[in-house]
């Protein structure tokens, strides 16, 4: 049986297939088709099937950026007309948002465009208070008039968000039922159904993001499913969600807000899976591709999660700029990002200072050395000048490169800085490294983790060239470079379970709490999870349910999530509170045992486990054979060194190499700095130690 993972990125579509019977991989990389990503997916699958049509395919897992691209306003992904129905008096709540400016000193700052125009935001008479009591019943006559207008306006998707619906879903359920009954082809997203947390703006925004994406994702996935059948693939299609778990295409179509950051999550999941395999529990995952670098943290094999994410927002110095995108209150894998990829362009600013990024030459035209017309210097060109990349060909000989073009690009940069080509290249590398070190600090030091106690797993085509420099900067002692760094993210698609997250806002202090009601709410969410997982074909013995609870000190505005035991009793509550105090101490440096504790929300994660790829350990031991030598510059030595070059495919389990050295392969190049030694482990990973 074969499992296939397909990761569609901005530049490449990566396919990884894993043959369970023989424990072997198949990798394929083709250019993406931005106009219609499913074209790239089908092309990759057809290519794979040409040589592998004898084996049955068990499942296809897909990561896609189509959701984000649509919200970023990509042409060809036009958002369909969407309406929003809310409580009388509050239709502008969405537009006001949190009333902040994303950029304090920018007098020309603009909010991201409203996903629902004001005239399509409707108010209906109804009101529920914070205890869930109905103060004013839902006015059905008014609602019907609104629905009539909505129909006339040619709206295809409707979001519903009422104040305090986290405390009582009644009116939202009634209104969605009314919409569904009236118009069969309508898409409906009720806020308490998508993310039932308190904080009206974020909850409404989540529902609206869901509503605008539903028509797009539904048509994309159903088209893709039928195309798969046409080429003879009957295997079910799954989609990676932003929380790192899988969902079926059907579930993803109903809740597309959960797949907006589908792609980046996969790399972190792959790192966690690899960590489990080789016995590394604390990992910083680092992915450097063509346009950006991304970092994430994994503690005890669990990726760190955030739930206050904004999609299509701006990133500044590694951090998301609050208020620049559309809030989605769902769990996302926590990532920091900066514009440093192989194609990132270096330039000199008005005051004569060297800057790296944010512009990128992408994969096409790509770095100057590709010879496709870009004449600006990139990070890849800098690596080429410093001898780190092969001077003739890339992609295992499939692609010719032109070092002269790199030099030409760097000559003009060097002139502006009055330095030599080599000095300019070294400066670009050092500045790019300092930017990337910063995102590694954001996900470690800033989150309260000491990077020296973590192992760095490095991937993406460009990552392994910068790994040693970054590890030295953060004083990390161990680096793992997986066998196919350029395909590693796609591998994560095969290493994930099904996850479905449920949440219910509570907003009560612990002494006001009715324990039975909480237990009932937990059971209800678990039942929802069970139903979703069964619909995805998961057997009951492969289902697991994690209960969590968000607590904070009364009056605070930030909550912490701790585990909750089953069944939820007063003992379970006490132990959750004790965990909260100690977690508060860990994260914020103090706890206040005498303060009142408040339960903000309760959460359930329903997990459907699927078997992971099992790699076989290899025990062969072969002598290491270098293929050539070339002069490479190492900034630590401040000099050029005649450096041995190895072919990754020739390095097998047990091989040892001492830095400085370079390992070349089809999809990546690893640079081993002086003072580092490498050994190939039983799974063909390069393990670097200092």
């Amino acid at each position, binding site marked *: 049986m074969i499992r296939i993972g397909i990761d569609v990125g901005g530049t490449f579509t990566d396919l990884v297939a894993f043959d369970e019977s023989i424990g072997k991989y198949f990798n394929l990389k083709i250019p993406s088709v931005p106009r219609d990503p499913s074209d790239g997916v089908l092309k990759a699958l057809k290519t794979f099937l040409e040589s592998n049509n004898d084996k049955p395919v068990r499942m296809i897992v897909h990561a896609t950026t189509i959701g984000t691209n649509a919200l970023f306003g990509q042409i060809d992904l036009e958002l369909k007309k969407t309406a929003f129905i809310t409580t*009388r*008096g*509050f*239709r*502008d*709540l969405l*537009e*006001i948002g949190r*009333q*902040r*400016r994303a*950029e*304090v*000193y*920018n*007098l*020309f*700052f*603009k*909010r991201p465009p409203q996903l629902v*125009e*004001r*005239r399509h935001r409707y108010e209906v008479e109804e009101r529920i*208070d*914070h205890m869930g009591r109905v103060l004013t019943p839902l006015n059905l006559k008014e609602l019907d008039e609104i629905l009539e207008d909505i129909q006339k306006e040619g709206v295809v998707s409707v979001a519903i968000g009422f*104040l*305090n619906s*986290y405390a009582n879903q009644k009116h939202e359920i009634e209104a969605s039922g009314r919409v569904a009954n009236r118009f069969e082809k309508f898409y409906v997203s009720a806020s308490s159904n998508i993310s039932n947390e*308190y*904080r*009206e703006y974020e909850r409404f925004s989540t529902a609206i993001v869901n509503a605008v994406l539903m028509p797009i994702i539904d048509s994309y996935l159903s088209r893709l499913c039928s195309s798969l059948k046409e080429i003879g693939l009957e295997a079910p299609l799954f989609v990676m969600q932003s929380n790192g778990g899988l969902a079926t295409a059907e579930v993803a179509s109903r809740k597309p807000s959960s797949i907006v950051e589908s792609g980046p999550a996969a790399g972190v999941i792959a790192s966690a899976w690899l960590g489990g395999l080789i016995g590394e529990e604390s990992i910083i995952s680092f992915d450097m591709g063509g346009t950006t670098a991304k970092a994430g943290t994994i503690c005890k094999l669990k990726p760190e999660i955030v739930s206050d994410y904004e999609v299509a927002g701006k990133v500044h*110095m590694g951090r998301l700029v609050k208020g620049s995108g559309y809030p989605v209150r769902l769990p996302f894998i926590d990532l920091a990002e900066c514009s440093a990829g192989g194609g990132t362009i270096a330039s000199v600013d*008005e*005051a004569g*200072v*060297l800057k790296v990024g944010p512009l990128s030459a992408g994969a096409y035209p790509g770095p100057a050395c590709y010879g496709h017309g870009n004449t600006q210097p990139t990070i890849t060109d800098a690596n080429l000048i410093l001898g780190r990349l092969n001077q003739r060909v890339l992609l295992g000989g499939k692609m010719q490169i032109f070092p002269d073009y790199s030099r030409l690009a760097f000559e003009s940069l060097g002139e502006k*800085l009055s*330095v030599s080509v*080599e*000095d300019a290249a*070294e*400066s670009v590398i*050092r*500045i790019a490294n*300092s*930017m990337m070190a*910063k995102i590694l*600090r954001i996900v470690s*030091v*800033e989150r309260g983790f000491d990077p020296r106690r973590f192992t760095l797993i490095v991937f993406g085509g460009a990552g392994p060239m910068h790994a040693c420099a970054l590890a030295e900067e953060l004083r990390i002692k161990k680096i793992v470079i997986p066998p196919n760094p350029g395909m590693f993210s796609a591998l994560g698609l095969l290493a994930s379970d099904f996850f479905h997250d449920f949440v219910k806002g509570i*907003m009560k202090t612990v002494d006001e709490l009715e324990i039975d009601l909480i237990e009932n709410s937990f059971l209800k969410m678990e039942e929802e999870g069970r139903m979703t997982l069964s619909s995805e074909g998961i057997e009951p013995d492969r289902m697991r349910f994690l209960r969590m609870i968000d607590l904070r000190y009364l*009056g*605070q*505005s930030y909550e912490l999530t701790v585990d909750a035991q089953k069944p939820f009793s007063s003992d379970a509550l006490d132990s959750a509170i004790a965990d909260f105090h100690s977690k508060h101490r860990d*994260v*914020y*440096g*103090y706890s*206040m045992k005498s303060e009142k504790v408040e339960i903000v929300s309760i959460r359930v994660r329903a997990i459907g486990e699927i078997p992971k790829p099992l790699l076989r350990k290899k025990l062969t031991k072969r002598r290491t054979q270098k293929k050539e030598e070339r002069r490479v510059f190492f900034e630590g030595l*401040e000099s050029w060194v005649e450096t041995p070059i190895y072919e990754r495919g020739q390095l097998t389990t047990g091989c040892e190499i001492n830095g400085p050295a370079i390992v070349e392969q089809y999809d990546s190049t690893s640079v081993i700095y002086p003072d580092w030694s490498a050994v190939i482990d039983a799974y063909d990973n390069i393990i670097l130690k200092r």
Partner: protein
Amino acid sequence: MNALKRDLTTIEVIKGALIYAAEEMGIALKKSAYSPNIKERMDHSCAIFDSGRRLIAQAEHIPVHLGSMTFAVREGLRYRGDLEEGDMLLFNDPYISGTHLPDLTLVAPVFYKSDIVGYVANKAHHTDIGGKTPGSIAGDSTELYQEGLIIPPVKFVKEGEIDEELSNFIKVNVRTPEVQMGDLRAQIAANNLGIARLIELIENYGLETVQDAMNAVMDYSERRVRAELEKMPEGTYTASDFLEDTGNEENPVEIKVEIAIKEGNIIFDYEGTSKQVNGPVNAPLGVTIAGIYFTLVSVTDPNIPINDGCFRPIILNIPKRCLLNPERPAPVAGGNVETSQRNVDVLLKAFSQIIPERIPAAGQGTMNNVSLGGLREDGTPWTFYETIGGGSGGRPGSDGVDGVHVNMTNTMNTPIEAIEAYYPIRFESYSLRPDSGGAGEWRGGCGIVRSWTLLSPTATVSILAERNKIRPWGLNGGSPGAAGEYMLRRADGSMVKLPSKCTLRVYKGETLLIHTPGGGGYGSPLKRRPEYVLKDVKNGFVTIGSAERVYGVVINPLTMELNLEETERLRSKMRGD
């Protein structure tokens, strides 16, 4: 390898690390603080200084702290400079720290091999520092002494330990001592982190290289700001605007500035500004400077790293005993929140003559401070404070932003669901005010309507706001934005209009209706593209009547289609062709 050029890259890397260290201090402070004011509203700032007390890097979230930090460190250390390793100086005296009493400033020296190599500092707005009203921002004080506990620079931390006597002294003078101590501990933690980061850098790169980098980052910013100033035409430009009253007196108070651009420098002269007043709207010098820095950063390039270098081209003349440079014991609580806004309005108005293509019309020009509190049905006390956004001014090339905080503040609102869960009030509306944005080729942003009904027997409400009488100005032919309006609806349905600065008692079932000002418009409304007017009408930002009366755009109310012929005729008539 060329040694000199090599160092330039090292300096670039250290520059980045210094800025990052200030940011990291800010994150540590926000994370470990207790009060939502710091945690959620982010009313705090952190900064790193060199041994010459020059600002190297600052992470600020509230513009009013910008610049006032430099002032605070310089003045605080002048007052008490004998710092040993492990000491930290605490103070809030507005005449030394530069901002109002609730802002507590904490400064620490950084020692390396027994020499002071720099300073780290932070400033955080505390929820209470004593005085006559909860929250320490009364709208009717006549002397500083009524506004809270005044702390001159004292060694709050000695050899790494909090001075218990000072700590007890502060605790008994404030309403919520545990919150204040929690936030102060967070301030200490932030400074300790800054010290550690600076020492790490020195250990990694050597003192001399780090100092070179500090000088380089300041020189770089200076070059960038001077380059921006050189693009501006030389000359002198004046502007003035008014606060509508002082809280205690009805008369308007003038702020007047003359900006001169000369030989790469920029001179700010406030000669002619009103004398200091007998109400809490005096702005301490730090707040005034913050307004100048905010404006300069905004009109040059916000991407220039903010440090001492940016401000080297500035020459100041702010007369003593005027509204913007008052003398003890003038009260100053509202200087941060209201006067700072008007100062920026005046400065931007002056800049609109220098670089008209880069200056918007006036924004709402107030923060709409509303504090309320009382007893619940069960007798437990509650207090709540918020500031409310309004319209930002129309801009050359784009409309103003609707319902947003402008210029000197940028705090978030509190979710309605949180307020209703904690406090005995129920919201009636939170929406945008149609027709409140000043008309113009580029419309001013709309103000906000925010209203709630009291559910408990009674409560006290304090309002500190502006622009209820004098509307935010338009530019280049644009109309002013709508004035703000505060109203109380009695239980019997009758309406009472409230002044913009007042304290009153409200009773169960009464509703406070707050209408915040809209932004001014930019350019003549008759030049606005009819399609934009139609879109605004369809979306309800502009009424169909105003479209015709103000914009000269004729829309068929039945089909909601433009009548371009009629529009041209009407506009030509309105222009007086």
